[in-house]
Each structure stands twice: as structure tokens, then as C-alpha cells.
């Protein structure tokens, strides 16, 4: 069921100089949706966010919040909450005063302020911290105060600028889950900027992947991961094996491609948006989709079964990463679970690898 559009960014362009610009960028965020802007640094995701918050003026295009033009309003009248990367808490104010900052600007009555701050602190698990100063809080607590400070104003949209990047690994995972459940409970439309693909995948309803100031693909986490639209998306999201190849034969059952090293691979029926026969292609193969067996298995239609040799094994505890040399000289990275069978893999061991035709994806180079 299509939900109503909360925020619409249309042909946003921001020019910093004749050489450096971002856009055109267009996307829509639906009501209650958790939408991520994902990309490497310098891709324009933070610029987009700052344009929505009003800290940067657009060079071209428009931003609408429920149909109303947002881009010509000053930042303090936008009703769009922003949680900053380094939290930007006011160091001279207590937790209570930080959280009530916006409410006091709105000249609410004191009992109402106390009530609303109390409720949001309860929601975010900071009760009892009211009179502390930001310097007396841990990184995770500061993060919560920053979220509470925006949330208490009940903005139409809540935006996050890499909010977890300053936390250590375990806390990051924990805050990620809390953020996710909080957003689901409140149903608050959210825009989340990150360069961390696992954060975007774990949190988002939909993700826009950006590169060099353009949107490469917009889709759900599984669409982005399983059916990347471009080689950039494929390489940026997750880890990947990319082989240069060209089409040898196309039939109703699938496509046969030949890699540069002469390896023939059978790919499944192509999904929408697949490139045509002409031109150079890339074949995408995710490391966890490679099955490794002892040699001597029997080939099944719809599978590629290739002889290989293990170049080396990287032990990661939960997983094993294998480097595999194929006959033609190409090297693939495979990721296997550290189960009983996997413990016997060792360097220089000859093996067979099995790749399902449906797990290969053809991309235009």
C-alpha cells in the first residue's frame, strides 16, 4: 500500500564551484519510513541533508515537506530535526536544559516543558541524568541526549548525520538496534546519512546509494544487495567478486558469458535492467554464495561447477575467508561459515566450487 509522501527532493543541485557540484538528486521519503542516504565521503549525502535542514542553500531544484516548499524557509522554521555527527550538545547546559532548549524557544508553559522532557527522557532511558552536563556523560548517553533534544519537539522528520560513527563497535551495534526499535515504535519519518553499509542495511526501509553527487540506486536493503543496479553499488555494498566478461550466448534458460581469462559461466535468466549483449560487462558474485566442496561432485543443470585451488585461508572465528585460484588464473574470494566441514580447508588444497546460476549478476561496466 503506497503511503503518502512526506518529503520530496526534486532535482536538487548544489554548486560549490564550476568544478565541484552535487546533484541533480531526486528522491521521495514516505510517511513513517526510515530512509538512508548511503555513500562514500564526498558523495553529496551530507550536502543533501544540510540542504534539507537549511544550512546550505540550493543552487537549483526544490524540497517539499508535505507539498509545502521548504527550501526558502530559514533553518529555524523548518520543523525538521537533525541529530549531529558529534552530537553538538550545548556544553554549558544540563541534560534537562539541552532537551528543553527547543521547547523553551517555543515559549511553552513550565509544567508542559517538564512533562514533555520527562516523557522523552523516559523513552530514551535517561531518567536521573537531568542535572548532568554533557561532559559528565558517556558517548552513548550524549548520543541519546542529542536524539531526545530533537525528538521532544516532535518534528515532522528526524534526520541523522552519521550519528553512530563516534561510538565504539559494540555500542554502535547496540545503539543501532535501539534506534531501529525507537523509530519503529514512534513511526517517525527518518532520514539517515551514513557511509557504513551495514548500518544502512540494518536500519533502513529504503536506501539511496550515492556516488559523486548522483544517486546510483534507490531500493530496499535486499534489492540493493541482491540486485545492484550498477557496478559501483555492487562493490560498495557488501564484498564482491567482480569479473570482466562478455556475452557468448543468450537463450531462454539463461546467458553464457566468458571472462577475460576464458572461463565460461552460465548465468540465470536476467532480471530487469540487465545490460544488453553489446559491450563489456562485469559479473558480480558475492563471496558467501560460493560453495566449496571436495573435488569429484556431479554437475547439476543451473549450476556452475569449477575446479579451483585454495590459495590461502584467513581465519576470522565466525567465518573463514578463502582465496581461490581458478584454472584460468582468476582469483575469487569466498566466505564460508566456520562449521565442522570447513575446518579441513588448507592452503594449496584442490577443491571444487559451485556457483548457482541465479547468484551471478551481470552489470554494465
Amino acid at each position, binding site marked *: 500500500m503506497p503511503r503518502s509522501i512526506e518529503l520530496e527532493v526534486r532535482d536538487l543541485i548544489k554548486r560549490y564551484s564550476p568544478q565541484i557540484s552535487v546533484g541533480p538528486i531526486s528522491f521521495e521519503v514516505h510517511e513513517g519510513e526510515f530512509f538512508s542516504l548511503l555513500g562514500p565521503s564526498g558523495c553529496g549525502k551530507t550536502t543533501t541533508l544540510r540542504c534539507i*535542514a*537549511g*544550512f546550505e542553500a540550493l543552487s537549483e531544484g526544490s524540497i517539499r515537506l508535505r507539498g509545502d516548499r521548504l527550501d526558502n524557509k*530559514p*533553518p*529555524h*522554521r*523548518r520543523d*525538521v*530535526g*537533525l541529530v*549531529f555527527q*558529534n552530537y*553538538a*550538545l*550545548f*556544553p*554549558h*547546559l*544540563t541534560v534537562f*536544559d539541552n532537551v528543553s*532548549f*527547543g521547547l523553551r*524557544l*517555543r515559549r511553552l508553559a513550565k509544567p508542559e516543558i517538564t512533562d514533555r522532557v520527562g516523557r522523552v527522557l523516559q523513552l530514551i532511558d535517561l531518567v536521573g541524568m537531568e542535572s548532568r552536563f554533557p561532559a559528565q556523560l558517556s558517548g552513548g548517553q550524549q548520543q541519546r541526549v542529542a536524539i531526545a*533534544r*530533537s525528538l521532544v*519537539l516532535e518534528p515532522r522528520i528526524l534526520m541523522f548525520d552519521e550519528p553512530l560513527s563516534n561510538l565504539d563497535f559494540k555500542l554502535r551495534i547496540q545503539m543501532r538496534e535501539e534506534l531501529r526499535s525507537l523509530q519503529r515504535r514512534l513511526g517517525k519519518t527518518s532520514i539517515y546519512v551514513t557511509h557504513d553499509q551495514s548500518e544502512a542495511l540494518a536500519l533502513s526501509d529504503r536506501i539511496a546509494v550515492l556516488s559523486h553527487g548522483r544517486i546510483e540506486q534507490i531500493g530496499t536493503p535486499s534489492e540493493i544487495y541482491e540486485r545492484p543496479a550498477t557496478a559501483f553499488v555492487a562493490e560498495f555494498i557488501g564484498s564482491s567478486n567482480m569479473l570482466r566478461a562478455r556475452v557468448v550466448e543468450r537463450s531462454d534458460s539463461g546467458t553464457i558469458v566468458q571472462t577475460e581469462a576464458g572461463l565460461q559461466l552460465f548465468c540465470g535468466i536476467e532480471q530487469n535492467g540487465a545490460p544488453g549483449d553489446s559491450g563489456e560487462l562485469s559479473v558480480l558474485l558475492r563471496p558467501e554464495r560460493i560453495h566449496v566442496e571436495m573435488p569429484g561432485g556431479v554437475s547439476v543443470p543451473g549450476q556452475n561447477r569449477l575446479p579451483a585451488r585454495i590459495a590461502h585461508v584467513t581465519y576470522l572465528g565466525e567465518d573463514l575467508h578463502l582465496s581461490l585460484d581458478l584454472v584460468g588464473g582468476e582469483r575469487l574470494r569466498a566466505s564460508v561459515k566456520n562449521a565442522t566441514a570447513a575446518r579441513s580447508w588448507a592452503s594449496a588444497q584442490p577443491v571444487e566450487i559451485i556457483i548457482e546460476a541465479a547468484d551471478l549478476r551481470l552489470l554494465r561496466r
Partner: protein
Amino acid sequence: MDGVRSRPIWAFLTGPYALFLLFLLLVPFANVAMYSLHPYSPTKVFLPELTLDNYRKIFDLYYVRLFGRTLRLGLITTAVCVVLGYPLAYFLARARPRVQALGLFLLIMPLMVSAVIRIFGWIVILGRKGLVNQTLVALGLEPIKLLYSETAVVIGLVNIFVPFMVLPIMASIERVPPNLEEAAQNLGANWYRMFRRVILPLSLPGLISGCLLVYSLSISAFVTPALMGNARERMAGQQIYDEVLVSFNWPSASSLALTLVLLTIALMFGALFATRHASRRDIAS
């Protein structure tokens, strides 16, 4: 071992300056304090008996007015420096590094010019037939008497002391991350309310140091009021100078000097206490 570590060798390197302060500041200061407690003698500098007359005299109308004028001009100079200096400090703190370097250079430049030359420049501008009056006459207006007045003294003092206001304020604004301003705006504060609730309280330490610096420098100023003010409306520095070098009344000059120092110290502590109190209440409310 701990005893050795807690007294590193460089601590002894502060010794020369400590000695310098001891012999060239504290000892003469004690000497001045001693003079101020003895009666004046035209022949022997002072008489070997103790008295408080030198301090009692300060409550004479002439001296009360002298100190009143000194403190008032100090306050006006400080206020003008805040009004002119704060925006400049904010601009420089938020400027790009190149603009900041150029701005700082221009700000400091007046301090590199000798006081006499700088004041001569002001005489050319403010004099009876100076630039200001020539402009007024050219516009068909009456010339005004600017030079040798309190106004001229304030102009001269502001000219030298603005950098002492700008630098500490700038340093404290530079320590406020710009995204605090954005956060305040994002929470609904327009520029003025953002300034009042975020920038101003966070730059308060710099503002206080700037005010204390400019105020204590202004009330003890000598050259500028002597050259740009008039002899009747003088400041404490001029009076002390005259009593030391013209009437040779060292005990009286000493009591004036000590009173000035004590007033400065008292006002500084008062200001520090008041602002600390105010900021604490601001946090609590």
C-alpha cells in the same frame, strides 16, 4: 622517585622571571606602600613618622572627582570596546584562515606604532582645523571642539585597547564548534536567540577577560589622556605623574597609586564574582 618526578628541571627555569618580578615589582611596590604611610616633607621626601593623612586626603572633593572621572572614562572605554570589538571578534573567529590572518594583522598594527605618532595622527584628525572639522565646515556645519576633551581621550584609548578586547573574545568563540550554532537553529532559534543562549554564554570567559584587561589598562593610562585630554579634566595617571615629577610629593603620589591598584583589584574580583554568580544562576534556571 616521585619527589624527583614532581619537580622537573624546567620548574627551575621559571626562577629568573620570579626573581625579576620580586626585585623589580614587589620590592618597589612595597617601597611605594611605605612612602604612602609617611607625611610629605619638601626637604627630605618624607618624615620618619607614620600617618594615614595621605589616604584621608583622597576623600577630598578634588580627588573623589579625579577617581570618579578615571573610573567613568575606564567604563566608557570598556563599553565602547565591547560594542566595537565583539562583532569583530565573532567575524574573525568564524573567518577563513586567510581572512583571519589578515584581520589579526590589521587589528594588531596600531599597537606596533609608537604612542606618540599614533596620538599625533589623532591630533591631525580631531584638531581644531582637523579632518573632522574641515568636513563639518565643508558641509556648512559649525566646527566642534573634539581634541583635548574626554571624548578625545576615549577615542584614543579605544583605538589602542580594542585588540585587547577582541583577542580573548575571539579565542573563546573559536572554541565553540560552529555546529552548536546550527543545532540551536535546528531547534528553532533565530540568529539573535541562538547568539544569546549559545554564543554569548560560551564566550563569556573571553568577554570578562577582555573587559578586565581593557578596564585596568584604561584607568591606569597616562600618555593618551596627557596628550589628548585637557589639564583640568585629568585622569589619575596624570595626577600621579604630576605629583611625582612636578610637585615632588612622593607620599601623596604613592597613596594615589595604591588606591588605583586596590580599586582595580576590587573591581576585578567584583566582576568575576558577579559573572560567576550570574552564569550559575543561568544554568540553574
